[in-house]
């Protein structure tokens, strides 16, 4: 069992290990194993296709948290040039669970804000597993202000289990920090494009997720509460997370049906972590066309459409 992969990925990983082994044998000897390798590669591709064609919402939730999944800094690296990280909230601290800065995207200046998880234990401790404290949201707010003043579109990358539930975070006003960002983003006079790249964890995600356009990678999730949290509250049993994931409808596909998101960005076969370059190119294509659309509007039209978009959320009935 390879700990870097999910249980339903194990047959794929085993098969790939076998292919690598054959390659090694081939290079050591004069046997020609090409045919066998090609056969196994085709088999592996079919296997991935069959596993990924029928993923449950719970499996998708696990993919969204995959330890090898590309994070904000990976996208920054592949999609932007001249990125400069800007740090600190000017009040208390710099929160490494949120990365922010300015850069060039396809030749144009932009501001970037994203959650950042760590790749290993040490980095995860520094980045608090991508769970921001109020400082993180206040740093994001600072960058939004800069973006508005210097007419930079804001691109956000959402990937967090949620805002950090800690004593200090509460003392320093976690609720207030999130609330202020929601209002500011609703009124910010520059385009805001939000992309869910992994976990969209509740208010902690929304605090950098209000804008003109919301897209989600096909194996990312977005939810009002984690499936585990929902299960322990409503089912009074955290092991019912699988049922909760289904009931909450947290996947891109379902949220698109419910018209809560604007676009699904396709991930390559087997998920974003199997082909980071293709994933980034798909994200690039989405951002390029959305930016073109929103930067060509007047700011007044942009803000009116955003207000319309945000205030139409909701499904209810009306009595006579």
């Amino acid at each position, binding site marked *: 069992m390879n700990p870097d992969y999910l249980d339903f990925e194990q047959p794929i990983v085993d098969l790939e290990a076998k292919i690598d082994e054959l390659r090694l044998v081939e290079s050591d000897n004069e046997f020609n194993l090409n045919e066998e390798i090609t056969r196994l590669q085709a088999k592996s591709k079919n296997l991935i296709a069959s596993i990924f064609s029928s993923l449950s919402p719970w499996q998708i939730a696990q993919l969204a948290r995959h330890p090898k999944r590309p994070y904000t800094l990976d996208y920054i690296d592949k999609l932007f040039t001249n990125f400069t990280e800007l740090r600190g909230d000017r009040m208390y601290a710099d929160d490494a669970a949120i990365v922010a800065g300015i850069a060039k995207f396809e030749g144009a200046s932009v501001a970037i804000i994203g959650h950042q998880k760590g790749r290993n234990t040490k980095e995860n401790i520094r980045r608090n597993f991508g769970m921001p404290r109020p400082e993180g949201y206040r740093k994001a707010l600072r960058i939004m202000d800069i973006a508005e003043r210097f007419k930079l579109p804001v691109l956000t990358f959402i990937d967090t289990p949620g*805002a*950090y*539930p*800690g*004593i200090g*975070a*509460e*003392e*320093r*006003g*976690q*609720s*207030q920090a*999130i*609330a*202020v960002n*929601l*209002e*500011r*983003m*609703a*009124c910010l006079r520059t385009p805001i494009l939000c992309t869910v790249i992994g976990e969209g964890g*509740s*208010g902690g995600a*929304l*605090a950098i*997720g*209000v804008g003109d356009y919301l897209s989600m990678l096909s194996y990312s999730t*977005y*939810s*009002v*509460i984690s499936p585990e949290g*929902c299960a322990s*509250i*409503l*089912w*009074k049993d955290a092991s019912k997370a699988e*049922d*909760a994931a289904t*009931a*909450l*409808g*947290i996947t891109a596909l379902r*949220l698109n049906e*419910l018209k*809560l998101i604007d676009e699904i960005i396709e991930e390559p076969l087997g998920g974003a972590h199997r082909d980071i370059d293709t994933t980034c190119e798909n994200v690039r294509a989405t951002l390029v066309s959305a930016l073109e659309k929103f930067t060509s509007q007047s700011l007044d039209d942009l803000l009116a459409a*955003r*207000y319309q978009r*945000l*205030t139409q*959320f*909701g*499904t*209810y*009935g*009306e*009595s*006579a």
Partner: protein
Amino acid sequence: MSWLEKLMPSRIRTEGTNKRKVPKGLWDKCASCGAVLYRSDLERNLQVCPKCNHHMRITARMRLQFFLDESPQEEIGQYLEPKDFLKFKDDKKYKDRLSAAQKNTGEKEALLVIKGQLKKLPIVAAAFEFRFIGGSMGSVVGERFLLAAKQALSDEIPLICFSTSGGARMQEALTSLFQMAKTSAALGRMREQSIPFISVLTDPTMGGVSASLAMLGDITIAEPKALIGFAGPRVIQQTVRETLPKGFQRSEFLLEHGALDMIVERKNMRDEVHQLLSVLLHQEISAGE
């Protein structure tokens, strides 16, 4: 079990937990000091314990009746009804939870909005109903809040909201999360137009409601000892595995940490809010008030 209870046939024996309960109707018991209080006295005292000053939770309708002038009053958005659009089912169906909540509270949803007057000053007032699925914010709450803000904007009158809520309505999933963005967008408009929004936090104000409309007041008030926060104390304790500080997430704690402007007792709420609004709106304050 006493010897007398042992003698009694089980049919007429009252359960151990019941015997300490006060009979329904005439009497209430203070959850804080345990004093047994005559219900009509308690009501006259605005559901505040006369012995220990504990502010009990009250219904949205009672709240606004205490707060607003008797007339004129006009309810806003009462025609909006919740819908189980996801066919959400945990161990109960959302549909059943809704009808039970409607039956228990006599309200169609967890937010009540009334356009009225506060000592002759025209205002829009909103109050959450905690007994309605924990005062949670779903589509109807969001839409009613939007209507309240729109009314305040078009009449150019202040909006006051009394929050008491566990947070977002899980059974409406992501749609409920987006009510946070919706209500915040509405308040953004109010800020741009300089229409005052006074947020009053009452016990408890947590999660998605606290992290949106409740923390966006021009002025933020809390009732004494209300539980206010983003994450619940239990979740925090499980995460940090430390003992929580004394009075953690209570109004007094928040005031000390700079999250509130003031703590106001229920009996002074009308006077205090009226005075604040009169100053903000350059109104004269007559000596009698």
